[in-house]
C-alpha cells in the first residue's frame, strides 16, 4: 500500500477526535494500533522512550518538540499537522487577525508560514505577498 502523504491525511483527520487532548488522542491511536509503549519506543529507535510517551499520553507533557510529534505521526500513520494543531503549534489564520494586525501597526511576532531568515518579522500581509511572489517565480520555471 502506498504511504499516505500528509496532505492526503489532513481532511480525513480534521473531522474526528476534535475534542480529545493531544495526550488522549495519542493514547487512543496507540491502542487502536495495538502497540505497547515499549513497541513504540522500539519503533522510534528509542527516540521516544516509553516513560516519555506515557507522560505525553497523560497530558503531563503537553508541549513536546515538533520532531517528537513528527516521529509519532509516522509510526502511527496519522496526520502530523493534526498533532501539531492539538499541541497548539499551528492555527488556522482568521481574516480578522490580519486586519487587526495591520490596523494596530504593532511590532509583528515571528511570522509562521514562510521559511525565511529575516532581520525583522514579516507582517501577515508581507508574508502572504512573499508566498505569492515565490509561487509566481515557480510558475516561470
Amino acid at each position, binding site marked *: 500500500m502506498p504511504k499516505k502523504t500528509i496532505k492526503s491525511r489532513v481532511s480525513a483527520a480534521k473531522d474526528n477526535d476534535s475534542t480529545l487532548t493531544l495526550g488522549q488522542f495519542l493514547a487512543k491511536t496507540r491502542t487502536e494500533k495495538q502497540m505497547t509503549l515499549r513497541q513504540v519506543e522500539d519503533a522510534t529507535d528509542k527516540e521516544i522512550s516509553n516513560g516519555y510517551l506515557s507522560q505525553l499520553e497523560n497530558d503531563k507533557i503537553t508541549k513536546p518538540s515538533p520532531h517528537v510529534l513528527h516521529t509519532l505521526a509516522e509510526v502511527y500513520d496519522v496526520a502530523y499537522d493534526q498533532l*501539531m494543531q492539538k499541541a497548539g503549534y*499551528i492555527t488556522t489564520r482568521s481574516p480578522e487577525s490580519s486586519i487587526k494586525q495591520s490596523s494596530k501597526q504593532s511590532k509583528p511576532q*515571528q511570522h509562521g508560514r514562510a*521559511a525565511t*531568515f529575516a532581520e525583522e518579522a514579516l507582517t501577515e*500581509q508581507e508574508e502572504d505577498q512573499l508566498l505569492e*511572489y515565490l509561487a509566481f*517565480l515557480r510558475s516561470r520555471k
Partner: protein
Amino acid sequence: MPKPDDSALSERQRQRIRQEAFKALTQADAIGVFPTPIDRIMAVSKVELAREDLADETLLRSFRSRAKGAIKRAVEKIRGVVDIVARIVYLDQALHKAQLPFLKLHETAHAVLPWQKDLYAVTEDCGMTLDPEIAEAFEREASNFATEVMFQGDAFQSEAADYKFGIRAPLGLAKTYGSSVYMAVRRYVSTHHRACGVLVLEMPEVDQEFGFRCELRRFVSSPSFDTQFGSLYWPGFFTPSDEVGAAVPATGKRMSGIRKIGLVDRNGATHECVAEAFTTTKQVFILIHSQKTLTTTRVIAIM
C-alpha cells in the same frame, strides 16, 4: 537592545539536529572535508540555489500584485527564503560572501529537517500558520543545523583546543571552516572548556557626550563561564569611559591590546579577567576570559 538568544535548544532537540547534520554530511561524503562543501550538501538535499535576486526591479514589476509596497518591504526584510515546494533557496544578493555559507545551510535546513519541511509545505499552501514560538524554534533549529554542518560536530572544538587561547584562534579557524568571523567566535566561546565569553558589539557610532558608543548586540559564554559567573548584567551600550568601551580598537585598527577587567562571580568573589578586542566591518568582538581570583579590583558587571 541585545538580540534574543537565537541558538538555544533543548538537549533532545540538539541531539536530533546533530543527527540530521551528520546524515547530510555523510550523504555528501563531506565528513572531514574543510571548509564543508556546501554545494554538495545542498545537492544531496535536493535543494537548488536560485540565480534570481528577489529584489530585482524587473522581477518585482512583472509580479502582478495588489500590494506592491508589502512585497517590497518583505524582500527588504529577508536575507534568505526557501520555496519548500520547488526546493529553491533565494538569498539576498547584497550579502557579504562570508555570510553566504551559513545562510545557504540555514535555508537548506528548513527544507531538510523532516518535521519542518512537512509543515511548511502545509502552511505555504493554506491558511494555517505556525505559532510564533514554534516559528522561532524552527529558526533556531535551522541555525543550529547550519553551524553543525559547517563546524562538523566536535571537529571545530577539538581543533580549537590545540590553539593558544585568544582572539586569534577563532580568526584562524574561521578561514579553515569557511565561516564568518562572527560564527567562529561564537562557536569558539560557546564550546570552549575555559570560562570565557564574548561581547558582540555593533560598530561604534558618534556620540556627542562620550565620543562614541557601541550598542551591545549579544553576549555569548562558555558553559564553565556560566557555572562560575551565572547570568551577568551587561549595560545596553559601551563608551570609551568604561572598561569594555575603552577596549574597542581605535578607528583604522582591527585589534586592541590585552586589558584587565574585573567580574564578580556567583559567590561575590571578584575575578581578574583578560579582555581583547577585534573588529570586522560589521561588529566589534570583546573576548573575555577569567584568569584568577583577586580580592580587590574594579567591577564592571554585577550578577
